[in-house]
């Protein structure tokens, strides 16, 4: 029998040479007459070990990494196909502490299976949720999602079941399920990993959503920065249709759901749900005033569920294993697991799925191993470019929506970007304003003009021009943006700016702790 060898086809694994390693392994096996089956899986999410090669053995999957093309012949010499010892050997993948100490529900199959094999998908728990969903009444599906406590993973943490209930309750001749796969937040890549590593879980989640609210058409709005996802998703949709997971007779239930992927075009604001809908309609991605919420009047004016990739991909487990199973994970009002993405200046960057409640400190040091540079960490930015900078003193915060909110921070999509002590926080504050100026949709003045002014004012502070006056100006500008903007783009850009100023006043030429709230 052929030995199964796994080399991820994940974007990040490929960005550090996984495709070259896969080709070298195939060529070397051929040359040596070894019978192997090369599987291009998703990533296990331990990115400092990529390219991570795994070999199927009697006792489980054995890992080697990080492997370069030049290591391949040596791995064969060491008999890695039989689990032979090699300096790059890491033992059983499942026993690597970083991986072992996770609670993988949504990511259970990512990295484990051949992403496009429906057979493997099903053999590893896939389709159980959909089988249940086709057999029950729509309201039962919505009730299960409500009871699970699932909240949106795209940033706003809105209860998913409530949103679905609204769509279910709004009569219309056509309803839509829209998957927000715009993943614009820097420092985040969980959506991408999931779509590349287990696309059927997203498809299954969207079909269940459609059955739950009475929608027959779905759209995945994918950012154009993800070319590999685009290919995987299109291929997966085609195969799902052939299999009967999509189409007009889902799993022989007589129920229908169709799905297509659309590409974004490089606009961050198009991740905001109403701008996303405008974009799907073929227009400029400008934010719509709410109300009406998309659940009542969304795509082409029809009731629409807009949910993040991880939100939707978590639904099959809730249906399959029951809402109580999912609800048992987590703390307070943050139920289930959180898919954390650890990046930036960190020794062990990766994706960590855990129940809510882990502290930042545990995440950064126990998993992350501290900075990559070996210097002390100074700050992290959580929740993407609109998220606050958090100083070391606050690393004891548990990862919980409410705990973060209490300290003026947010978890958002679960990205945590680490910076060591060489970071210049004035520069990061300036970048936040620059990013907002660049990406503003232009609809409201506080955001459009405020961000441009913000950059100028920070430049004057840096130059030492009337610093007191300009700091006051910056604060009042942030205030105007925060309270006068139509959406969180302008409304939350002050978070990174004000938090930088508050926690790192010395970078702005101030000596004492500068608390803008006092």
């Amino acid at each position, binding site marked *: 029998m052929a030995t199964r060898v796994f080399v991820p086809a994940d974007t990040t694994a490929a960005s550090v040479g996984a495709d070259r390693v896969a080709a070298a392994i195939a060529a070397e096996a051929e040359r040596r007459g070894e019978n192997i089956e090369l599987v291009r899986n998703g990533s296990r999410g331990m990115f400092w070990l990529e390219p991570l090669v795994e070999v199927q053995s009697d006792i489980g999957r054995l890992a080697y990494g990080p492997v370069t093309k030049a290591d391949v012949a040596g791995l064969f010499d060491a008999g890695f196909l039989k689990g032979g010892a090699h300096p790059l050997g890491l033992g059983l993948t499942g026993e690597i502490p970083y991986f072992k100490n996770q609670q993988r529900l949504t990511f259970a199959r990512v990295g484990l299976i051949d992403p496009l094999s429906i057979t493997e998908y099903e053999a590893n728990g896939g389709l159980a949720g959909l089988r249940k969903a086709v057999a029950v009444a729509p309201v039962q599906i919505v009730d299960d999602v409500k009871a699970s406590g699932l909240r949106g993973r795209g940033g706003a943490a809105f209860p998913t079941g409530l949103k679905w209930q609204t769509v279910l309750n709004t009569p219309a001749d056509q309803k839509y399920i829209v998957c927000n796969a715009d993943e614009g937040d820097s420092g985040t890549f969980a959506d991408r990993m999931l779509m590349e590593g287990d696309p059927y879980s997203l498809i299954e989640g969207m079909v269940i959503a459609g059955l739950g609210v009475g929608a027959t058409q779905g759209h995945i709005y994918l950012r154009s920065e993800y070319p590999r996802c685009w290919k995987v998703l299109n291929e997966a949709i085609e195969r799902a249709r052939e299999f009967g997971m999509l189409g007009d007779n889902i799993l022989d239930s007589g129920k229908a759901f169709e799905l297509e992927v659309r590409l*974004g075009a490089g*606009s961050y604001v198009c991740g905001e749900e109403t701008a996303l809908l405008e974009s799907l309609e073929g227009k400029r991605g400008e934010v719509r005033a709410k109300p009406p919420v998309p659940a009542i009047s969304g795509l082409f004016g029809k009731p629409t569920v807009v949910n993040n990739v991880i939100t939707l991909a978590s639904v099959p487990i809730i249906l399959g294993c029951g809402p109580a199973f999912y609800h048992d994970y987590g703390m307070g009002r943050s139920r289930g697991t959180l898919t954390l993405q650890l990046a930036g200046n960190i020794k062990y960057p990766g994706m960590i799925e855990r129940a809510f409640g882990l502290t930042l400190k545990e995440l950064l040091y126990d998993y992350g191993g501290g900075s990559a540079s070996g210097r002390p960490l100074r700050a992290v930015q959580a929740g993407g470019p609109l998220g606050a900078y958090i100083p070391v003193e606050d690393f004891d915060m548990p990862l919980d929506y409410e705990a973060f909110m209490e300290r003026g921070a947010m978890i958002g999509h679960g990205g945590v970007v680490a910076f060591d002590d060489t970071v210049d926080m004035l520069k990061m504050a300036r970048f936040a304003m620059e990013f907002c100026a660049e990406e503003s949709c232009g609809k409201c003045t506080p955001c459009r003009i405020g961000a441009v002014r913000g950059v100028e004012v920070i430049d004057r502070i840096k130059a030492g021009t009337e610093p007191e006056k300009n700091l006051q100006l910056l604060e009042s500008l942030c205030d105007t943006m925060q309270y006068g903007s139509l959406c969180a783009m302008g409304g939350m850009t002050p978070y990174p700016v004000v938090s930088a100023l508050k926690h790192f006043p010395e970078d702005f030429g101030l000596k004492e702790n500068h608390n803008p709230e006092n």
Partner: protein
Amino acid sequence: MTYDTNRIEAIIDAHRHRPGATLPILHDIQEAVGYVPEESIPIIADALNLSRAEIYGAVTYYSDFRMQPAGRHIVQVCRGEACQAKGGCDLEEHAKRSLGVDFHETTRDREITLEPVFCLGNCACSPSMRVGDEIFGRVDEVTFDEVIRDLKSNRGAN
């Protein structure tokens, strides 16, 4: 004109029946021609029953679309925070200096257009860059130079 108007018509025909077809059409035209030619705007507008202003508005709104030809290769360097935390700003400076262009500009030999990008979802192996559909991680000045050299030497390929 270096492009084929029939090709543009064929692209429009392939999508015009889809609701909200503007972006798929623009993407395909840009893929085929390298940019969205001014002349294609009234054709798209007619086909979709929209005004020219609406199509023009969409083309200019999205940073992916360009109305002028770019260099033979588009090189995007990530400016996101996770890349900045690992020396992304130095890479940006190196890219500009070594190519002799600023962002949104094309080298004099028309080989390379340099563009910024805000996150490639490759943040766990930052800093990152993208050329065509290929994404590169843990990029330092040496790898950047290698990538550029490969692009320039590989004159036939795209």
